[in-house]
């Protein structure tokens, strides 16, 4: 006997409206003529180049942070965006769970510190620019060393090993004599370049040149990553993420491509670490808490892992929101103290209502549906 049951009338919820709105925007975007998209893109980029200028941001209402120098905040935000773009290659494209991504950032920063700072035992005092390539190379090598034994194995080993790696680096930073612990390394040099009047471009006081440098690097990295994802490499990564066995059965050398994703992600973190060390002028063991790894991972997932724009928005929003809480008091409580509580809440809510992230990847959405089906079947 079969009876048909009419589905109950569903009231349109706010979430539905939001979804439709977002859908409409993305439809518009994809159907807009090429030149419109270019103009918009250029406008957005120009906006972000202009953003750290006081003459500009003072007209932006509530956007500038009340409790901290907005230009400095924007530098931090840009570093997080760069890290999110890098981690997105590892987590989003290749589907590898890296819980210790900040460890590579630390390797980059410490490489610069050890080779350039007068407090270092090495006393090499090399210029910043000469050391950046070494920092990137070393992080890549540490990525390969970490990845080679673990990426052959299936399952959660990588998550554990990366977690251990980041913790190891942190402990080494805290307790090793060579890495100077809390005292740290000072007088790390800045990148080269000076204005006509002889003042250097890069310094501690004005964060704008650093921000512009990072912004430019982000754009270059994004162009590179985009080209990669539209190539055979990108297809291989996606296939590994979606079904590793099937990828192998189609002739994809899965280990090689996982290692590539992991190592290129590491290299980007190394670059970010080198920029950070230069900007801060100082590196010590307090900069590399485990929490940072978690925040970046959360940012990538929050933005919509597997999507470059999602990673940018996720990394930017998360870093910005955390700073935005600074200096805001509610009922005599400084909200900044509770920033991670809010952060956690937002994440939980996101995972319930929008597990694929703010700006999901089309494929990812389908993969999520697919896994949900599996869960139901397995029950």
């Amino acid at each position, binding site marked *: 006997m079969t009876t048909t049951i009419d589905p109950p009338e569903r009231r349109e919820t706010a979430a539905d409206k939001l979804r439709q709105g977002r859908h409409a925007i993305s439809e518009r975007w994809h159907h807009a003529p090429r030149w419109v998209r270019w103009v918009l893109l250029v406008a957005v980029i120009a906006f972000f180049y202009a953003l750290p200028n006081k003459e500009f941001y003072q007209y932006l209402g509530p956007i500038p942070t009340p409790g901290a120098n907005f230009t400095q905040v924007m530098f931090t935000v840009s570093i997080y965006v760069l890290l999110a773009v890098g981690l997105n290659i590892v987590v989003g494209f290749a589907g590898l769970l890296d819980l210790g991504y900040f460890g590579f950032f630390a390797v980059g920063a410490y490489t610069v510190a050890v080779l350039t700072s007068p407090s270092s035992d090495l006393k090499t005092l090399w210029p910043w620019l000469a050391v950046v390539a070494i920092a990137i190379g070393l992080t890549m090598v540490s990525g390969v060393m970490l990845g080679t034994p673990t990426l052959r194995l299936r399952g959660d080993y990588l998550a554990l090993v990366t977690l251990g790696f980041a913790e190891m680096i942190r402990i080494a930073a805290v307790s090793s004599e060579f890495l100077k612990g809390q005292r740290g390394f000072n007088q790390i040099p800045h990148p080269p370049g000076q204005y006509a009047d002889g003042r250097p471009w890069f310094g501690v006081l004005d964060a704008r040149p650093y921000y512009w440098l990072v912004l430019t690097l982000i754009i270059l990295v994004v162009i590179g990553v985009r080209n990669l994802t539209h190539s*055979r490499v990108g*297809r*291989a990564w*996606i*296939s590994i993420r*979606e*079904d590793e*066995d*099937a*990828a*192998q*059965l*189609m*002739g*994809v*050398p*899965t280990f090689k491509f996982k290692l590539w994703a992991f190592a290129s992600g590491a290299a980007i973190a190394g670059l970010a670490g080198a920029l950070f060390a230069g900007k801060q002028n100082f590196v010590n063991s307090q900069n590399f808490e485990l929490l940072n790894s978690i925040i970046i991972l959360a940012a990538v997932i929050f933005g919509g892992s597997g999507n470059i724009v999602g990673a940018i928005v996720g990394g930017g929003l998360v870093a910005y929101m955390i700073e935005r809480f600074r200096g805001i008091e509610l009922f005599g409580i400084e909200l900044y103290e509770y920033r991670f509580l809010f952060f956690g809440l937002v994440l939980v809510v996101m995972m319930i209502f929008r597990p694929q992230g703010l700006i999901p*990847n*089309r*494929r*990812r*959405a*389908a*993969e999520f*549906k*697919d896994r949900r*089906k599996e869960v139901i079947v397995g029950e």
Partner: protein
Amino acid sequence: MLLEIEDVSLLYGRIQALHGISLTVDEGEIVALIGANGAGKSTTMRAISGIRPVASGTIKFAGEDITKLRADLRVRRGLCQAPEGRGIFPGMTVLENLDMGAYTRRDKAGIAQDLARVLDLFPRLAERRKQAGGTLSGGEQQMLAVGRALMSRPKLLLLDEPSMGLAPMLIQQIFTIITEINQQGTTILLVEQNAQQALARAHRAYVLETGRIVKSGTGADLLHDPSVKEAYLGVA
């Protein structure tokens, strides 16, 4: 011999799934592998395609010892498996899935030709070419898995239960397609629950029981073998 497996054993941790099995597949044949659930049919396929390492024994493909060869390199040698069940890429469209099948190839013209052939074999896939693999019906996914494997233009095609979960009509259809593929020159090793059909189509067949080959012969022989009839064909 295109494929020669000799005395292969395979372990999952401490569980031994294959106990020294030997089988051969000659060029141009359809060879069927039948057996009950858990007999080790899929495991045999995994050993051949290389996604599981074997504990002992040798696997030879076209005269070359591939026992220790990486899975992706075996695909380049001309050995391709359509995995059991939902082994397709759920987030990729039908066309992208098929494209992944040709991952090891660079001959654009040949790929286009094979794509046309696959879409011709499976008109359903042609209709749904832009749909995400994960949203296809079970039967359509099955067709996609077979079509995708064909895209590598394999010398030996390994099919693990291509008829699983299909309606009777479609089962007929998929077996017809298998015969067709074979007549177009592809050698096939076929794992099936549907023993009746598999034995009727196969040149030769092996019966697997708890990790051991217990019987082998021509498809027709096994089809009329009393013990096979009783155990796998559902007739007393």
